[in-house]
């Protein structure tokens, strides 16, 4: 991988993290507090787009930059887990389990949907 690609990985990683911060803030301010909807929406939308890139068979540096760098930074595992743990601490065990189940189900479904759309595009 060239030094330019590594530079792109850094720049787009920073862009992806800020996009997550923005979308999470917009969703969290509007959706209720039943679940951490901001992170769920970020993760579902990022999985949809990564599925789409897989569907159109993007490869090489383009996949590295758009997929691994941008969408990899945009979506997050650690925040999803931290929010789940804090729900459990607040004695909201049902919400914690739901956050895991919804996150996984929607994540895989979004990736599959994105890939199907990409494959037919």
């Amino acid at each position: 991988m060239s030094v330019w690609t590594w530079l792109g990985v850094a720049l787009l990683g920073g862009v992806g993290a800020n996009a997550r911060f923005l979308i999470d803030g917009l969703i969290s301010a509007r959706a209720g507090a039943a679940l951490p909807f901001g992170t769920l929406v970020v993760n579902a939308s990022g999985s949809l787009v990564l599925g789409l890139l897989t569907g159109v068979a993007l490869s090489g540096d383009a996949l590295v930059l758009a997929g691994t760098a941008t969408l990899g930074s945009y979506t997050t595992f650690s925040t999803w887990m931290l929010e789940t743990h804090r729900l459990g601490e607040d004695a909201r065990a049902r919400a914690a389990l739901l956050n895991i189940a919804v996150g996984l189900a929607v994540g895989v479904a979004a990736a599959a949907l994105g890939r199907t759309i990409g494959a037919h595009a």
Partner: protein
Amino acid sequence: MPDLDRREIAAIFLGGALGSLLRMWLGRTFATGAGDWPWATFTINVTGSFALAYFATRLQERLPRSIYRRPLLGTGFCGAYTTFSTMQVETLQMIDDDRYALAATYALTSVLAGLVAIWIATALVRRVRIIA
């Protein structure tokens, strides 16, 4: 639109860039074949969860309030270092290969290990003695 704070955005950008670089480097160094257990993503997600819980608990409950550490270390670095989308596409690939047990084990083990890592890091910061 939330109030945009340029220094906060810069902190998230710097943390996100570093997290992205580290994840990319680990992913290439410890690359696994399609259909194998994705050790790189798994390890990145568990260690990143540990780090986020450590930083978040310390910044919220132990240190004086700081405006830019949480965006730099939490939202930026840990958020970008760990990844959800790659994990979902890896799981989808396992389902495609009719390896349903592997797909379920990968998803559930990632979640379980992530939660245990967060529990340990939180307890460490709170100085709670962990009794096995």
